[in-house]
């Protein structure tokens, strides 16, 4: 019994220590974001890597999700003669929820893994130590540009993804479900409010921050060898995904609970 309680105590202490390390890492990152030097070239490269190069995967995800959503809403709405709500529900669903969440998750899969693997490999091959000996703070050079780039790029990706998702719904609605094209568009535009769009973009920024922080944190925590880097990559993707879903609930409460 004592052994069991000790085991639970150790687990709780380890968990609290891990949360403390992550919180400290996040605060340290924020501190470095607002203090010079700033590595603008690295920021530009990361905007390209995280933003531009994630566009195909986010766009395709949104396109197919928008199409599937239109079919689902049509089939579900038919049960109580509400097929006409397809355009507005697709638009609201994409902009408020599916665009940011699926976009965030796809970026987590693509970017958090890539950041963790890259920084983890740099740690294992002493490149992080080399940065320090070259008078360069790894937090400023590696973490800050990635966090800023992801926080700026993911809302843009979400906006583009929302548009593509709505377009996917439009294509299915018009070509498959025989909606009138002009009516579909006007229904979409009329039912969307600025708050819907802004809340989705705010979620995107939060999810981008989470993705980059998780990638950098786990990369910096990487153990030795291929196994260590592999474990860091896995932890980055899993923790980023779970935190995105948790943050999505919290932000939805904040934005829409009233």
């Amino acid at each position, binding site marked *: 019994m004592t052994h069991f309680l000790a085991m639970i105590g150790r687990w709780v202490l380890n968990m609290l220590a891990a949360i403390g390390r992550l919180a400290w890492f996040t605060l340290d990152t924020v501190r470095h974001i607002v203090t010079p030097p700033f590595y603008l070239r690295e920021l530009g490269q990361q905007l390209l890597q995280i933003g531009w190069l994630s566009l195909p995967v986010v766009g395709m995800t949104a396109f197919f999700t928008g199409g599937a959503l239109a079919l689902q809403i049509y089939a579900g709405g038919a049960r109580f003669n509400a097929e006409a709500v397809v355009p507005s529900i697709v638009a609201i669903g994409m902009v408020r929820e599916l665009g940011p969440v699926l976009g965030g998750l796809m970026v987590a899969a693509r970017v958090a893994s890539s950041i963790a693997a890259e920084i983890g490999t740099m740690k294992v091959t002493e*490149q992080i130590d080399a940065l320090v*000996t070259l*008078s360069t703070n790894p937090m400023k050079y590696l973490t800050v540009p990635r966090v800023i780039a992801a926080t700026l790029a993911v809302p843009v990706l979400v906006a583009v993804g929302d548009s593509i998702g709505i377009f996917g719904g439009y294509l299915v609605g018009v070509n498959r479900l025989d909606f009138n094209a002009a009516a579909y568009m006007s229904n979409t535009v009329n039912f969307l409010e600025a708050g819907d769009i802004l809340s989705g973009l705010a979620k995107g920024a939060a999810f981008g921050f989470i993705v980059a922080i998780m990638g950098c944190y786990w990369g910096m925590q990487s153990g030795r060898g291929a196994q260590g880097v592999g474990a860091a990559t896995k932890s980055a993707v899993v923790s980023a995904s779970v935190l995105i879903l948790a943050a999505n609930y919290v932000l939805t409460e904040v934005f829409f609970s009233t």
Partner: protein
Amino acid sequence: MIQLDNVHKSFGTNAVLRGVNLSVERGKSMVIIGGSGTGKSVALKSVLGLVKPDQGTITVDGQDVQTAERETFLARFGMLFQGGALFDSLPVWQNVAFRLQRGHLKRPKGEARAIATEKLRRVGLKPEVADKFPAELSGGMQKRVGLARAIAAEPEIIFFDEPTTGLDPIMSGVINDLIREIVVEMGATAMTITHDMSSVRAIADDIAMLHDGVIQWTGPVSDLDHSGDPYLDQFIHGRATGPIEAVR
């Protein structure tokens, strides 16, 4: 002068350094030898502040490494890492000129590139190498690029971590000769860790042997073969029997 006084460092229950005392005089080339896992790299990284000792003090010209202003302090150092530690995402010339492109040593791009090309030439690499990426180079070439990066900002103190590990004997000889030439030419203080005895004889003015967490023996390279220290004798002759356990 680099001075380590009673330096201790443990990782968990593993006490790696147990009271290291060592002096490296300005302009001298000190080589630290010792078996694998005896804490040579930890000692070197402690001087740079990459590892914080649990106990003891390390000073460089009287300045405590833990309290020194980091950028100014590190600007005095160059380091060649065991695996090169070149930045994969940057071409060779940007690796060499890394320090010259940022911070208070920043130069215009053209000047930084010219210095990088000159340092590459100094280590025997052609200008065409400058635009390649590290992954396109052989192990020996990567070491040379690492060496060029270490000397790019003309540091006062240069550290070499296992400079010949993984290289064939001829390339090892080339790297050893380069290190010796550069250290003499620049008048730099050098600290090298290795267990390659050909490197020791080529590079060292003084030698320190690290064993069991302490400096077991230290002296000039001329005393290496008649030190009378059984640990050192076993190590330099590569004998399986002696006071050092072969299985660690």
